[in-house]
């Protein structure tokens, strides 16, 4: 019989007593409150069990799983490797392109498929557009968390233009099913390149505008600088990735350090946090890394559009994908960090086991570590700065 541990852990509080000036004795104790699952600043259905001593956070216990849709179980029950891709779309619904690419790349590496160069370029363009769109949401909603409403509307206005580009390409605005194993569902529509170039030209000045109104805003800086500091060694120990890791001063980006696609053909910089407004690895750094990453993404898109080769958009692959028995772990850089797919194949047409290592899941696990001792109001700033998408945390 397997032992089962089903009950949640209970936090043991520390009751105490204080004497008032009139000589009375008052009982004091820590308080446990729930933040979420329905709370506007948890960015989805996340429940944080917060232990408070007055307004100071003593401990945070995240409870996740409210959005668990059994991605891994579903994937094992598909009849075909391609059918998993729409489910990947729905994991991180703000960065579907990156998810599709991560999965498609894993299957391609497992089967040793080479995709045509045009496919690689289009994938880079799509992934970087998606990165901007995803960061825009992160920045906009973070502004809302901190009480700035205007940047939120600006971010959504710009994101709409990216979604228009996606809609033009594959008909969908949120869940694309565009990147397939061995290529793409179809080629770029006529006029896409011009429209994408227009977008880049339009978007670049907007970053400066955003900085003026939000990033260097006195109130915003006061709320985020020196709050929730994540030191580099803790970030690495907790396997944080993406902007959360880079903001702590760790110069690590899978696009550069383990190049996939054609990222090695472009000139761009990896952004790391410098502690400009306070300490390295604080909430402001995590926010600001995203802002500057958008600029780098625009650089990549411009170069990719200029070099875009002609050619086929599907590699010659068998109609039914049957990888040889084996396993592979492939990781890619999604807007939130290291998105890994571990695929075990038994040689049949369905995956034997797929594990998705979602960056938001791992980044969230560091939350208790960095929020102990902060104020309750700062907890909102910290949760927002990690940029979680609960669809991906729970899968």
């Amino acid at each position, binding site marked *: 019989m397997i032992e089962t541990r*089903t009950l949640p852990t209970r936090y043991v509080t520390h009751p105490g007593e204080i004497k008032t000036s009139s000589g009375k004795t008052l009982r004091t104790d820590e308080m446990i409150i729930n933040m979420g699952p329905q709370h506007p600043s948890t960015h989805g259905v996340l429940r944080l069990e917060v232990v408070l001593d007055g307004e100071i956070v003593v401990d945070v216990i995240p409870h996740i799983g409210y959005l668990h849709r059994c991605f891994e179980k579903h994937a094992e029950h598909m009849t075909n490797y391609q059918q998993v891709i729409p489910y990947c779309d729905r994991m991180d619904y703000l960065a579907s392109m990156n998810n599709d690419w991560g999965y498609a790349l894993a299957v391609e590496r497992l089967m040793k498929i080479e995709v045509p160069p045009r496919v690689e370029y289009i994938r880079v363009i799509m992934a970087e557009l998606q990165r901007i769109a995803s960061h825009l949401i992160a920045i906009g909603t973070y502004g809302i968390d901190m009480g700035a409403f205007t940047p939120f509307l600006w971010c959504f206005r710009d994101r709409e233009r990216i979604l228009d580009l996606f809609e033009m390409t594959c008909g969908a605005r949120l869940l694309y099913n565009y990147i397939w194993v061995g290529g793409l569902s179809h080629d770029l529509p006529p006029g896409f390149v011009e429209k994408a170039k227009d977008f880049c030209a339009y978007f670049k000045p907007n970053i400066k505008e955003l900085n003026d109104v939000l990033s260097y805003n006195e109130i915003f800086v006061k709320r985020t600088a020196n709050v929730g500091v994540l030191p580099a060694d803790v970030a690495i120990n907790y396997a944080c990735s993406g902007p959360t890791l880079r903001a702590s001063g760790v110069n690590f980006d899978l696009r550069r350090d383990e190049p996939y696609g054609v990222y090695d053909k472009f000139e761009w910089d990896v952004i790391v946090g410098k502690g400009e407004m306070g300490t390295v690895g604080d909430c402001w750094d995590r926010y600001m890394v995203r802002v500057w990453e958008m600029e780098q993404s625009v650089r990549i898109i411009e170069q990719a559009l200029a070099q875009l080769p002609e050619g086929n958009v599907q590699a010659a692959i068998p109609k039914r994908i049957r990888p040889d028995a084996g396993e592979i772990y492939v990781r890619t850089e999604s807007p939130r960090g290291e998105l890994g797919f571990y695929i075990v194949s038994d040689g049949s047409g369905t995956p034997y086991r797929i594990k998705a*290592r979602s960056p938001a899941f791992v980044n969230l696990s560091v939350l208790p570590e960095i929020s102990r001792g902060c104020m309750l109001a700062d907890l909102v700033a910290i949760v927002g700065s990690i940029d979680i998408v609960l669809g991906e945390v729970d899968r």
Partner: protein
Amino acid sequence: MTAEEIVQLLQSHFGDAIVESKFDVPQPFVVVDSKRMKEVAFVLRDDEALQFDYCSCISGVDYNDGRLGAIYHLYSTVHRHKIVLKAFCTKENPHIQSVAAVWGGANWHEREAYDLIGIIFDEHPDLRRILLPYDWEGYPLRKDYKVPEFYNGMKVPY
């Protein structure tokens, strides 16, 4: 360091705790004794030449032959090399030593493997279900899992 060198170094440290290694696959792996996982992990993290400080992913797998496995994907941000560890246990006695004390990131991955596959990680600080409700019965990603007809007395419609 190449995978061969890493395995040699581990073997010189631990001898029989390193059960098996395989290099002729795309991602070489080492099978470690599931009862000595933690000491191996500490050396992997702290040895000057190894410094595997980044535990990317831990995945539980049911091999459908009575074995369960935990697969650890490690990476070193200092030396930029990689290795895959594997630890196996049986379905009747699904115990593997936890490495949550070594890598903080392993904590939630191990909870997930416990939740979905049913591997019990000994010495884990807070081993409880993470994605499924606390009162869920069974481990859904096991190959012999039967989807329950009832949940808390309520019929599950399909």
